[in-house]
């Protein structure tokens, strides 16, 4: 029974995908959207069932769907594991997934390919569930690749625009780089332990007979995989470009769920990373640097979705910072709260874009507070949450990351704090430019300004409520989440709430307020509006152009590869062709000469035949 329910949970979005891809065009758009949504809601309800069951019994539920690979002593089955970690992920993936599906029914209603959109979205949820519930690395890898595919399909959803196609390809290719790391890491682990099953690896490691050097390489490779999927340095540049996709996609895939897959994987393999402190240091440093770099780029972006994208990269960096210090529970906490408020922010920006008929440049917005009150208030709450204002969800989770950082490494703590202040600044810059002061767009746009329909605002309200109360799952007093994850992550010492902790909270809060006041002074008091692209100069231009990282990659990798393929095409291919063709003409010439021997004279044939026999016989005698 449980087994069947788990399979329904897994396959329900897949059924939605099959329906929408094959019959979606035949039914009306609303029906196609409703079916897409209902299949995900079904998964969500089943996740709740399993979750409450697990909460009572405390026993994870594991079973094998079928035997998959069996080669000598290496055995692998297609296993499903529903434990604390995977159910937590399932809950917010399917939960937020349902809300975003609901939102998309309204948001995508004017699109002729809406059924395709829902098909891809359902397929994404299916692969995400696969990624989360797999009981071994290979099943996770199927989901891992699958979500990458769906991300590609959805970024390039409006395929008539070549820029969007390029963004989709960029996302796919950069993910491939990371995936190679994941693959190599998986192979090493498979070679070391003859298994890919999490529980079996853990047992083997507990027995303590692992080659730590090789294990370190494996952990590093897995982390490289995570940097690709979760957009960390140096593979983060695809995520801002991925904003080319429809806004619900950005909210679901590129903010709330898929990009957290890297964090899920590292948390899942925590027993490996715990044994490799060097790799953990690398993770922490990469995370902190990513947080800082992305936040600083976010300071000057003018595209509303780009700001949110860099903010996502920056927040993911903070999560990796926590992972690097072994504080997996803290990272998971931030993943969940971040999913709430970032999904809300993206959906809110989608609502704004919807209201302005596709306008994404904040320089042409402003004053939307009156026209779109629900969007404004929900986004305001989420902004307060991401900025880390007491008592919203982001405050608790970000504060814990900073606390962990303070405990382990003061330098990284300072970096993360600066990134947090920047976060507060650019988020309020976004709010001020979008919702305050006068409207800067055209008269026609102003005339059409309206609040979005209820299918759009309801998910916003639900997510905003979660952004307020989401912190409750791991309040410093109760630490429910930490206790809940103990079977997987082991016991973590709870912070006793002393003056030390209160001081750090105070510092974080003051930092956030400084960022807000800074933004307030610049964009409200001075009424500053970002200059047009051509007028930006100096260091600001460097930041505005994202430190020229894309240009650097183009110079370092794309150009040489283009040059190389040009060389192959113009020089090597003709040269090789000549060699191959010369064999052909040699055979041709031999044939032309050889055919003269066949002159039809049987006497000659017989003579040659006898000579040949004699030659063979002579040879045989001599050879003996």
């Amino acid at each position, binding site marked *: 029974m449980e087994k069947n329910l788990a399979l329904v949970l897994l396959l329900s979005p897949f059924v939605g995908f099959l329906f929408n891809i094959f019959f979606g065009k035949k039914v009306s758009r609303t029906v196609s959207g409703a079916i897409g949504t209902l299949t995900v809601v079904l998964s969500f309800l089943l996740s709740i069932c399993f979750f409450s069951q697990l909460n009572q019994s405390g026993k994870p539920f594991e079973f094998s769907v079928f035997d998959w690979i069996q080669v000598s002593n290496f055995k692998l089955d297609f296993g499903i594991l529903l434990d604390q970690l995977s159910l937590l992920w399932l809950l917010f993936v399917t939960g937020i997934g349902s809300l975003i599906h609901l939102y998309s029914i309204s948001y995508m209603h004017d699109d002729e390919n809406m059924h395709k959109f829902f098909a891809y979205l359902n397929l994404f949820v299916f692969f995400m569930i696969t990624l989360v519930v797999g009981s071994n690395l290979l099943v996770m890898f199927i989901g891992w690749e699958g979500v990458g595919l769906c991300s590609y399909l959805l970024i390039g959803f409006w395929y008539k625009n070549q820029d969007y196609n390029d963004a989709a390809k960029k996302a796919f290719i950069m993910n491939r780089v990371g995936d190679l790391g994941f693959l190599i890491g998986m192979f090493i682990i498979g070679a070391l332990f003859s298994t890919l099953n999490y529980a079996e690896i853990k047992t083997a490691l507990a027995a303590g007979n692992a080659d730590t050097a090789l294990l370190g390489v494996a952990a590093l490779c897995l982390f490289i995989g995570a940097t690709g999927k979760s957009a960390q340095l140096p593979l983060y540049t695809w995520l801002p470009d991925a904003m080319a996709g429809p806004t619900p996609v950005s909210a679901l895939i590129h903010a709330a769920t898929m990009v957290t897959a890297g964090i899920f994987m590292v948390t899942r393999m925590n027993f490996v990373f715990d044994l490799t402190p060097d790799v953990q240091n690398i993770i922490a440093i990469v995370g902190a640097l990513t947080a800082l770099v992305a936040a600083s780029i976010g300071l000057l972006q003018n595209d509303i979705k780009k700001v949110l994208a860099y903010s996502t990269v920056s927040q993911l960096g903070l999560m990796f910072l926590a992972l690097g210090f072994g504080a997996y529970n803290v990272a998971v906490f931030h993943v969940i709260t971040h999913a709430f408020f970032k999904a809300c922010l993206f959906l809110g920006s989608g609502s704004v874009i919807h209201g302005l008929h596709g306008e994404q440049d904040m320089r042409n917005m402003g004053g939307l507070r009156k026209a779109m009150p629900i969007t404004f208030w929900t986004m305001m709450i989420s902004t307060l949450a991401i900025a880390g204002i007491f008592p919203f969800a982001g405050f608790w989770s970000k504060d814990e990351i900073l606390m962990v950082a303070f405990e382990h490494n003061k330098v990284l703590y300072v970096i993360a704090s600066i990134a947090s202040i920047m976060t507060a600044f650019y988020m309020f810059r976004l709010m001020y430019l979008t919702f305050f002061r006068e409207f800067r767009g055209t008269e026609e746009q102003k005339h059409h300004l309206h609040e979005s329909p209820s299918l759009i605002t309801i998910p916003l309200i639900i997510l905003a409520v979660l952004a307020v109360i989401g912190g409750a799952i791991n309040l410093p007093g109760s630490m429910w989440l930490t206790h809940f994850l103990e079977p997987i992550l082991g016991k973590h010492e709870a912070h006793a709430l002393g003056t030390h902790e209160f001081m750090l909270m105070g510092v974080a809060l003051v930092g956030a307020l400084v960022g807000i006041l800074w933004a307030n002074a610049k964009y409200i008091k001075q009424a500053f509006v970002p200059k047009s692209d051509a007028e930006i100069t100096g260091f600001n231009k460097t930041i505005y152009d994202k430190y020229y990282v894309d240009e650097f990659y183009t110079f370092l990798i794309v150009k040489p590869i283009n040059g190389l393929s040009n060389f192959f095409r113009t020089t090597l291919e003709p040269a090789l062709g000549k060699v191959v063709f010369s064999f052909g003409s040699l055979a041709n010439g031999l044939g032309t000469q050889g055919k003269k021997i*066949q*002159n*039809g*004279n*049987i*006497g000659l044939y017989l003579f040659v035949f*006898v000579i040949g026999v004699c030659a063979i016989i002579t040879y045989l005698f001599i050879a003996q």
Partner: protein
Amino acid sequence: MNNILNQIGIENYIFLSVLLFCIGVFGVLYRRNAIIVFMSIEIMLNAVNLLFVAFSTYHQDSEGQVFVFFSMAVAAAEVAVGLAILVSVFRNLGSIDIDNLKNLKG
């Protein structure tokens, strides 16, 4: 059986066989008449058969004789086909001189 070999000696069989084979080879090389070429080939074949039988007796092993049966059966079939071809060649060309058979020229 052994008596025959004792009286005559294996080497004589070999000489005879080589002689027959050489006659066959020269027949093939020098005669123009297709039927005689054909007969020469048969002589070569039988030279080998003779050698087979001789050595079969010498080694007290009947395998060689079995082989000879096979090769004789195949040779009979081959002769039937070969003669049929020659007959049809004669009907078409009015001659079986191999110098005239130049239609196989490539």
